[in-house]
């Protein structure tokens, strides 16, 4: 991409250039992939937006939210309810408004709630809305399914989601450099300190909660034509909330792009297990989760950072060519030795059985 005779571009220009290339390539995918490949990418892209949006709020504030399915569902169900009354884009706008309003109210109400209390609040909220919608449909409309048949095919959904992804990344990037982002970091560390240094805590928390929720709502709205047939149980599926949290943790929250790294492997893995080992799906998925927790405590981001460091080290070449090999070997074997995982567990049992070895540690 860079000619030898041209001046070496700055890092920023290179970064922007490669990002633009990446986005253009991603935008071109619908014309390169099969129908199934595209629907797979729609799924990836929707979870990408959800997960990064989730991390916008939950990353810096460290408040784990299970309300994702509530906002996703509100977006989807608003479109489903209004699609016969107004054009598609108008339903998107209404959905966005409803989602923002709900997020504002919830954000204000939950200001004092933290930790596990906040986690389960989100779950309760989503379930309550689902129950209310079911009740409403049965008693007021006497049917539960709603069709969203509009000329808005997978390609269009994908391109819109890609656009949304670009925006959510841009917002996240700007946030990291803005005062609000810094304020949120301080809140995440210690809310009392944040208050004392003059951060408007309620405003900062509610603002970012609303922004994050709006992305989730929009994703739900965009996915409505993809589902085609929608009932409250499809739209307010608590599994979406759980999956988003798992993906974000798997990817790692230290970096803006971290959560994204959790989305792709998890979706590929699920797809693989659902199709290749359908009867063992649950067991294998569970084992993979546990392996991640015990051997990759810092997520995929941590893995990549470790790898980056390991790659960076041999460049000194003080130990000759065998140096990098030794490093690579050491790095590869590290996860098994270091975080104590299963090996540690076996050791614990061993210590229990044979007390004389106790003094070793």
């Amino acid at each position, binding site marked *: 991409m860079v000619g030898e005779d041209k001046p070496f571009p700055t890092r920023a220009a290179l970064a922007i250039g490669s990002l633009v290339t990446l986005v253009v390539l991603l935008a071109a995918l619908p014309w390169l992939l099969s129908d199934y490949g595209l629907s797979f990418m729609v799924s990836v892209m929707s979870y990408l937006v959800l997960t990064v949006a989730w991390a916008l709020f939950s990353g810096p504030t*460290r408040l*784990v939210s299970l309300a994702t399915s509530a906002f996703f569902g509100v977006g989807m169900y608003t479109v489903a309810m209004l699609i016969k009354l107004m054009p598609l884009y108008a339903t998107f706008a209404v959905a966005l408004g409803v989602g923002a309003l709900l997020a504002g109210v919830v954000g204000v*109400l*939950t200001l*004092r*709630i*933290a*930790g*596990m*209390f906040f986690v*389960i*609040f989100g*779950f*309760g*909220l989503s*379930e*309550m809305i689902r*129950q*209310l919608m*079911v*009740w409403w449909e*049965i*008693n007021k409309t006497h049917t539960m399914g709603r069709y969203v048949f509009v000329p808005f095919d997978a390609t269009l959904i994908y391109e819109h989601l890609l656009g949304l992804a670009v925006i959510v990344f841009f917002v996240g990037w700007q946030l990291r450099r803005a005062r609000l982002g810094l304020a949120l970091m301080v809140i995440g560390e210690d809310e009392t300190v944040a208050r004392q240094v003059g951060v408007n805590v309620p405003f900062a928390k509610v603002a970012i909660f609303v922004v994050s929720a709006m992305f989730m709502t929009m994703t739900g709205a965009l996915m409505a034509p993809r589902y085609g047939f929608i009932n409250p149980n499809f739209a307010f599926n*608590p599994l979406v909330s*759980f999956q988003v949290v*798992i993906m974000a*943790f798997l990817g790692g929250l230290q970096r803006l792009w971290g959560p994204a790294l959790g989305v792709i492997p998890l979706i590929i893995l699920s797809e693989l297990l659902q199709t290749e080992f359908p*009867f*063992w*799906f*649950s*067991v*294998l*998925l*569970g*084992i*993979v*989760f*546990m392996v*991640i*927790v*015990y051997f990759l*405590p810092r997520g995929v981001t941590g893995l990549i950072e470790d790898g980056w460091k390991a790659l960076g080290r041999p460049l000194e070449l003080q130990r000759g060519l065998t140096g990098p090999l030794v490093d690579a070997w050491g790095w590869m074997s590290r996860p098994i030795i270091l*975080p*104590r*995982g299963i090996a*540690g*567990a076996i050791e*614990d*049992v061993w210590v*229990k059985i044979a007390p004389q070895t106790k003094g070793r540690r």
Partner: protein
Amino acid sequence: MPVIEVIFGGVILGGLYALVAMGFNLQYGVARIVNLAYGEFLMTAAFAAFWMFTLFGVNPILGMFLSVPAAFGANWLIYRVLMTPLARRARTRDQLEGETILATFGLLFVLRGAATIAFTANDRYYDYLGEPLRLLGFTFAANRVLAFATAGVIATAVWVVLQFTRFGVALRALAIDPVGAQLVGVDVRRLSALAFACGGALAAAAGTLVSTFLSFNPAIGIEFTMKALVVVIMGGIGNMLGSLAAGLMLGVAEALCSYYVDSGLTLAVAYALFLIVLVVRPRGLFGTA
């Protein structure tokens, strides 16, 4: 139907919720493990009761003498083997919560998947004590009353142990302040393992009792886990009395709603009540700041 009868029905249902939640509260409030696989132990115990009853005609209550100790042992092992490494590695309570959620989420899938393969996904139901019981002039289902009575006995036993024994004092100390507890000579790891195992044993007891009046299949675990979480959070983490109160509140609210408002709104009302409690008391009914 007099309002008192509706409330009685709600209390019996709430007792079940409290029973399910108390075991979870021991695991979460004392051992500090958010065990998302809690419901899978409940489900496994339900299947154990079902097989013992249908194959060998073993009374489910007698069967508990087998399944409850087995669950105790299994949960003790899980704590020692799977949770201890996480507890050692975690620097803060938040971190431990996060990691145990992920690990037990994995465990949930493993256990549920294994149960589906072993027991098949079919719904199971058996008829045990499905007889009317006259109580205070009202008619209740004998198996539901039995579950409520057992919940009451267990709650009292747990309360007595917590309140009046050295072991209980140590557990309460652990629930309130693990670092402080260690300073005054509490063996945190050993005690946490025991609390976790006790929680698992309660799950097995709850599972056995539930199986006498609800149908079940390998996928029901998560529903009970989330119900337990809601009750524990609503009552206050680590507070057994809180769980009991919250469970009863939810049961009574559902019963009143189903009779006076609309059956379709019972769960919506239960969740709304939960949300309101949290908004008013951010650390639960009996939580301390």
